[in-house]
């Protein structure tokens, strides 16, 4: 397959008169982690929601060269996009295993979801221990794992992660990001949005910096991590946060 798995061009999103995302372009390739870092309110979450179809947006969105800009969320999931939302959006009263099985809702009915389920349980052994428990009773880290596992059940080509470290203890953050890095080996294209720029740039291949709705800087993650402008704005103060 030539060309990027997901390509966004000149994407704009507005809430009423306020333009939250102004002309953002980015690309994600299979087997790569691309991160979007930036301060709170820079438009990162809005960008992901627009890419998933949760929010209406203008501009072009190509998935494997085909336009998905007019597709509703369900069609994008079927095509191969998955979003792990900032608020996880789990089915709280249903069991962990039911949450995971519903993640495979768009897979062809003839396919046995058991194999994918085993893979997810191998990746997140803690979910297997809690398989019969209601999702609402899980800890913050486990919820994040369940949200990721549920997204993986759809066998996505592009996995979008919105602030997976949000509200989690540093040790759990390391564990989650380590898992994200491992997922790269499965060939999925990962688009990671993070406020925790240091941690995100450490595992990513390529990075974009967003400020007030636009991309101000972009480049290989290692170069960004050493860029004085990035260090000053996003890494300096975060010395002990990661």
């Amino acid at each position: 397959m030539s060309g990027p798995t997901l390509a966004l061009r000149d994407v704009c999103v507005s809430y009423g008169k306020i333009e939250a995302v102004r002309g953002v372009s980015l690309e994600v390739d299979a087997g790569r982690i691309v991160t979007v870092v930036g301060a709170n309110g820079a438009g990162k979450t809005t960008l992901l929601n627009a890419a998933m179809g949760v929010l209406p947006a203008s501009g072009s969105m190509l998935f494997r060269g085909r336009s998905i800009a007019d597709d509703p969320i369900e069609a994008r999931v079927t095509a191969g996009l998955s979003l792990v939302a900032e608020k996880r959006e789990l089915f709280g009263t249903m069991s962990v295993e039911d949450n995971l099985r519903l993640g495979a809702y768009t897979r062809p009915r003839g396919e046995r979801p058991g194999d994918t389920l085993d893979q997810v349980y191998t990746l997140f052994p803690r979910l297997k221990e809690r398989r019969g428990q209601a999702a609402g009773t899980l800890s913050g880290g486990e919820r994040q794992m369940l949200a990721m596992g549920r997204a993986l059940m759809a066998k996505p080509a592009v996995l979008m992660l919105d602030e997976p470290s949000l509200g989690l203890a540093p040790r759990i953050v390391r564990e989650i990001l380590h898992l994200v890095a491992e997922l790269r080996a499965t060939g999925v294209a990962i688009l990671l949005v993070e406020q925790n720029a240091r941690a995100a740039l450490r595992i990513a291949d390529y990075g974009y910096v967003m400020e007030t709705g636009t991309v101000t800087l972009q480049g290989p993650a290692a170069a960004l991590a050493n860029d004085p402008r990035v260090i000053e704005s996003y890494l300096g103060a975060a010395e002990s946060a990661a």
Partner: protein
Amino acid sequence: MDPTIALFLAQDGVTNGAIYALLALSLVLVFTITRVIFIPQGEFVAYGALTLAAFETGTFPGTAWLALILGTAAFTVDLARDRAARTPRRALRGLALDVLLPLALLAAAWHAAPRHLGPLVEVPLTLAIVAVLGPYIYRLVFRPLAESPVLVLLIAAVGVHLALVGLGLLFFGAEGHRTAPLLDANWTVGPALVTGQSVVVMGVTGGLILALWGFFGHTLTGKALRATAVNRLGARLVGIPTSAAGAMALGLAALLGALSGVLIAPVTTVFYDTGFVTGLKGFVAAIIGGLISYPLGAAAAILVGLVEAFASFFASTFKEVIVFTIIIPVLLWRSLRSPHAEDEE
């Protein structure tokens, strides 16, 4: 009151309660999935009873026309509004389900009406004609309002109720109808006389509750419907088409309503506007279950049936008043126990 009368009243109460349970389950189902407080549920009951009565008297039921008209309208609206519906595959599917299916039902009704083919043909046909109305109504009325607050949805539901009552008068006239018993037999068990009708009602209701439990607890489609109710955005993010879930919920509700109508028609004279009060009793039960609990709603429905039966013996003029008064202490208790207003917006 001697034990024989008490047993008779209890049987009557449980039988009616079983029907209220079906209605309460429908209301809970529709509310949890679509957030619509579905006032017109009772109209499906009346339509079910009166459509079957029409077949029995050999007249053609107007509900078959309604199904065709609503189906065609839903299909046309989809084509006009949704570009994705214009792809050949989707358009053909829509044509088959929204136009050809009600057309086939209309033809079947036309064929069956004068021939007195018996309940084995007439009951399934009645259920099919009324059940398809549910998804069409959802797509025409509630889907465009899917993101609206509960109050707006409630007002739309009242509108649908008024429209359906009016159409009921047009289709079936102002006269009441009763149908032949589904099972014309009686047994004496100890001091009590058990009627075939109550056995059918309880058997069907029990079976349906089990079937619903199996559907929602053990099938992927059922779980997807529940997931839609639990977290709408989450459901969309895993690719569950939530508007199809709403159509399915109303389809199930219409089917359960029509079935309730078929079950009460032999014991109660049903008028075009009977559904409302019957539906309200199911509603009382559903409210006792907080509009979210299936088992509580079903249990409360049996209680409503029993209270109604005994009230009609002791103070028949106040029968309805007593039944609806149950809701007051329940609401008081619920509001004291959970002080938060149930306003999600």
